[in-house]
């Protein structure tokens, strides 16, 4: 197995090396005064960041991103947690179908339901505004909260709820005094994951955003499409800002959740 081990680590090192190259190229370019065809740029500057901030109205874009993400997180938690609780605790006719329905928006490519969704939102004059962006982003987020919360809920022994009832706690007391405190870690994990996913969600926002409701990813994409008018470095500076904010979110997320949860918590339904 030794050669196999070396091969594995070698391949991993090769992958990481190229990754550093890819990220490094953007990072270096965003700080370079001028860089073409050489190993290293002629000089370094932070001017492009100031220019990107000004040119692309980054303050407004970041504000929109923040507003959209926070709204999506709050609403999807409010809808998703009760749903996850009922799905985890009860076995009823049609539960399998409902489970599938809550799995599909995570499984399907966003484009497949995004295009009909955007069409419907345009029909009701919701698209092209922040409301439309929030509504569209909720579609995969609510199921994602359900999926993330389910294991957290299942690990709370129903006997603990019974014990609270035996102590004289009514339903409201069971919810606020027992379930809520025990579910806080799960809700935090789900929230931060939804936040990361919403900030990074391109397709749905792209399909529903208007000029005043672009989030950072979409704005970034448009700036690339409009390249040529502005210096490449400003686009790179913006991309670095995006990645840096995602990285901050991710570092926070990793404090609360196991990295494997960043992907999904797919519960086996068979």
């Amino acid at each position: 197995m030794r050669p196999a081990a070396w091969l594995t680590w070698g391949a991993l090192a090769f992958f990481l090396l190229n990754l550093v190259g890819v990220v490094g190229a953007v990072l270096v370019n965003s700080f370079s005064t001028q860089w073409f065809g050489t190993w290293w740029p002629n000089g370094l500057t932070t001017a492009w960041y100031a220019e990107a901030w000004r040119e692309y109205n980054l303050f407004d874009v970041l504000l929109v991103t923040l507003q959209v993400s926070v709204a999506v997180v709050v609403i999807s938690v409010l809808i998703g947690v009760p749903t996850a609780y009922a799905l985890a605790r009860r076995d009823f006719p049609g539960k399998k179908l409902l489970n599938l329905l809550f799995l599909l928006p995570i499984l399907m490519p966003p484009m497949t339901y995004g295009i009909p969704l955007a069409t419907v939102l345009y029909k009701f004059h919701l698209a092209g505004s922040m409301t439309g962006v929030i509504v569209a982003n909720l579609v995969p987020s609510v199921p994602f909260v359900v999926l993330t919360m389910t294991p957290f809920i299942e690990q709370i022994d129903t006997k603990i709820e019974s014990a609270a009832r035996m102590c004289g706690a009514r339903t409201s007391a069971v919810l606020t005094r027992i379930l809520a405190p025990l579910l806080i870690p799960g809700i935090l994990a789900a929230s931060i994951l939804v936040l990361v996913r919403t900030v990074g969600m391109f397709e749905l926002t792209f399909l529903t955003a208007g000029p005043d409701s672009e989030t950072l990813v979409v704005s970034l994409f448009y700036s690339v499409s409009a390249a040529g008018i502005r210096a490449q470095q400003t686009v790179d500076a913006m991309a670095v800002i995006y990645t840096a904010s995602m990285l901050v979110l991710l570092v926070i997320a990793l404090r609360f959740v196991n990295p494997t949860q960043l992907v999904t918590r797919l519960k086996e339904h068979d």
Partner: protein
Amino acid sequence: MTATATTTSATPALRHRLAERGVDRLLLLLVPGTVFIALLFLYPFLYGLQLSFQPNTGGPLANYERFFTDAYLRDTIWITLRLGLPAALFNVLASIPIAYRMRGKFRGKRLITTILVVPITLGTVLTAEGLIEYLSPVGWFNKILLGLGLVDEPVRLVHNYWGVLFSLIITGFPFAFLLTLSYLSGIDPSLERAAATLGASPRQRFRHIVMPLLAPGLAVTFCLSFVLAFSVFPSAIMVGEPQGSTHVISIAAYNTAFRDFDYPMGSAVAMIMAVVMLLVIGLVLLWRTTLYRGATGGKG
């Protein structure tokens, strides 16, 4: 039994019979979620489906006929599969040996995991920009190849099929790796130790113990990786050749719906996309049903 007794006992009995089937007031908690998913997922999807059968011109199936007779549209399926399948396959296969070596506890494990997770933060745009600059004829990659004398002239790796594939690997590999790792750590390590005491070599242990228990998880990992790769959209535009070799199905759907404003046709393309994706996933999951899917003895 008297009539009054029957009526008084009927109410709790019905409630009990419903509760027996899991139907009680707690299910009210499902109402917001169900209404939401019906209104914002199911309804638009069905609306899109019926819209696709109401083309701007021609009979109900005209959109679908147009898709399959127009080579430029029809080929998007093949182009997307040619990108999605290899990318998903590579991401899953590459994850297995790396995840396999990361099962136990060792120094630096957290660091490596974190580094492997970082590409999730890159987003498609930075990845695309990075690939364009890193792999460009005058970029670092070609400079190194030329410097080492491996090639005589710069290799062209962006604005074509390869650029998109690399982008799919960079963004998709962390997902596949983390999923595989979580499935692997769900396998009780004492099973491997038990096999070792029975005389199985490391290779045999991997072949006869780990792989059979991991395979169902790998099937799911492959499906999710495939969905991710099959959805490819912005990177196909930025690092690919969106009018040619990377004219993927998402681009076709978007362009017909929001550039040509032919919503019915756009919906039809989206439906075809969903069907192709479900077909591939269905086949993989069908294969999965032939595997052992019981407990893997671990915490997973």
